């Protein structure tokens, strides 16, 4: 079981996580995410992290609330349990994506998002596809981790899943 205190953090924090994957070298980027008992991320297709995750299912996820040095946060190690893409996967996981956008960010689902996606998907400086049906839906099984409420005052707590 994930510690209750960590579960609260996973429910309350709305800051992007940093996802690290391992290929020939380490790779890390900020990501949209959602936690509903399972930990979900939804990276765009054609990216280095997708290539890495196809070869190596180990990942590390870190988050610092508001990217503030005194913020609450966590560092989790896990393994990929599911990884799907395509139009059917998009339909199947639309609720996860909607939850990421509404509960974990201020983006929401609406005209603004469409405008953003249109600009981003076609921009010459972007090398991968941001189109929704080319997204991946990745479910991560958490194996162990550390988390903190106030690191300076109370330090970090560690846990390992049984």
């Amino acid at each position, binding site marked *: 079981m994930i510690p209750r205190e960590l579960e609260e953090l996973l429910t309350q924090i709305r800051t992007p996580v940093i996802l690290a994957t391992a290929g020939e070298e380490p790779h890390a980027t*900020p990501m949209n995410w959602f936690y509903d008992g399972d930990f979900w991320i939804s990276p765009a297709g054609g990216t280095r992290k997708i290539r890495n995750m196809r070869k190596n299912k180990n990942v590390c996820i870190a988050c610092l609330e*508001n990217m503030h040095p005194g913020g609450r946060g966590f560092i989790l190690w896990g393994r990929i349990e599911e990884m799907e893409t395509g139009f059917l996967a998009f339909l199947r996981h639309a609720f996860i994506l909607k939850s990421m956008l509404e509960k974990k960010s201020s983006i929401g689902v609406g005209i603004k998002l469409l405008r953003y996606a249109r600009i981003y998907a076609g921009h010459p400086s972007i090398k991968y596809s941001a189109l929704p049906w080319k997204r991946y839906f990745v479910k991560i099984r958490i194996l162990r981790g550390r988390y903190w409420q106030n690191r300076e005052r109370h330090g970090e707590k560690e846990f390992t899943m049984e």
Partner: protein
Amino acid sequence: MLPREFVEYAAEFTLGFLATVRDGIPSIELVEFEAKPEYILIRDMRKDGVACLVFANERYSENSKMAQVTGELVMEGGECRLIPQRAYWTYPFSLSSYPREIVRRWRRR
């Protein structure tokens, strides 16, 4: 040398996420850093090998600022330095006009 534009961009940030890999398992540590033209100083760290430093603001989508630097960690002069091999960083943009640039990239020649 890292572009001046990147060093100025990075000066806004002091805290980053340093990713390394050991035995096929990636790990992240929160680190304090300072970008200099030749290298990135990682404070309170004793490590070497390939690493990837990410720093970002807390915003999503068009308001997001993030940078990623991949390179080699070396201990030199009693400090831990990330010698950059490549970097990219993003600029926020307005949805009301088509942005000239979103991502900038740099690679050591």
